[in-house]
């Protein structure tokens, strides 16, 4: 294998013949391979990614501080078991069990729904991204962030309320938050289920039979 010859075969009269020394580097290359394999498995060059969230505080807001949202702009997502997502828009009608609809996390499900409801903002974000990556490459990152924040903070944007159930898992929550980012929705909140939501969920699952027996929750 790898070897280095020292000296040479030069013979000079009267001088003792130099002997060629063979240094075998096989163990060294072997050790190098082992060390590289060790480092490849135990270390990482990339740092893990994170997704920031900010939760609302527990402090009670005064009546006038609470933000009023238009019914057409509000949608509530209920994260259920087995990666199912139920939703209703605006204020639900407790008499009708079809106000709660079912969808899933596939691109044709929740994402299509949210993109459709958030059409104008998604279109503006697409233009901005086009500008940043294609036409105006000199746009700085800060400017991009500032402008996207401005677009997403538009008063007419969708407001999403995410209510996970006890049957949902962590991946469902992260997927829901991910859809917020994909559909350019900046206004969302993670809150607990209320009795009304539980009622709607039971009602949908039993196709109205539950609602026929139990009384709808007080508003």
């Amino acid at each position, binding site marked *: 294998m790898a070897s280095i010859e020292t000296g040479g075969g030069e013979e000079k009269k009267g001088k003792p013949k130099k002997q060629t020394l063979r240094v075998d580097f096989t163990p060294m290359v072997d050790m*190098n391979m082992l060390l590289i394999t060790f480092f490849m498995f135990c270390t990482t060059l990339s*740092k*893990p*990614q*994170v997704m920031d969230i900010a939760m*609302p505080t527990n402090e009670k807001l005064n009546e006038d501080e609470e933000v009023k949202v238009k019914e057409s702009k509000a949608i509530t997502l209920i994260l259920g078991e087995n990666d199912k997502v139920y939703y209703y828009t605006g204020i639900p009608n407790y008499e009708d069990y079809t106000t709660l609809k079912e969808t899933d996390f596939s691109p044709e499900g929740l994402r299509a729904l949210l993109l459709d409801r958030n059409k104008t903002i998604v279109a503006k974000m697409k233009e901005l991204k086009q500008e940043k990556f294609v036409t105006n490459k000199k746009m700085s990152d800060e400017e991009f962030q500032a402008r996207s924040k401005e677009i997403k903070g538009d008063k007419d944007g969708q407001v999403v309320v995410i209510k996970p159930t006890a049957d949902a898992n962590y991946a*469902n929550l992260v997927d829901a938050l991910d859809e917020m980012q994909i559909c350019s929705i900046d206004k969302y909140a993670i809150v607990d289920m209320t009795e009304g939501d539980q009622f709607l969920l039971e009602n949908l699952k039993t196709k109205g039979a539950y609602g026929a027996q139990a009384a709808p929750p007080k508003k």
Partner: protein
Amino acid sequence: MGKIKVKKQSTFIDMTAMSDVTVLLLTFFMLTATFLPKEPVQVLTPASVSERKISEYNVLTILIDTQGRVFLNLDDDNAKKSVLQLMGQDYGITFNDKQVRSFIEQSHIGVPMSRMSAFLDMPLSAQDEEIKKMGVPTDSTNNQLTRWVKHAREIGGDNMQIAIKSDQTTPYPDVDKVMKILVAMKENRYSLVTTLKKMPEGL
């Protein structure tokens, strides 16, 4: 007998170039890579399109496994030492130097305070086995998680970031409990550790 001699064919491939490249690769890896922290339980984090990287220093990582057990990781060794002293004061336990060193060497915090002294006296390999079964208590009667995070925040200052790392299949109520504990402490901003997913086409 040896009458028949097989002619030895010596093949000399000059491997100098290859050993040269391997030495270079090795040096590169040794200098640039960071060791992955050893975790009591391996978790598979969910995917997200978020591209923001976690900050390098001053991060408190809360690891939640599939059974809802909570482990904490603080990357700054000095901060870890101070937090241990403060927790010891709260519960009236003092730790000797050997225990403090063992605490710093153990990558994650995941033992109730009542078992902490005995735990730190065990050798590291035994600790790894034990910690998997325990976890920081989070129930409302014995909420040690609040104290740990409070002290970590006191030592780490405002720059310290909190990250929650959990498995995809962890039931939501376990994560919710931790999030509610954080909100009760007025820690409203934190990050969720995710793996990278490509942004869908056309968006």
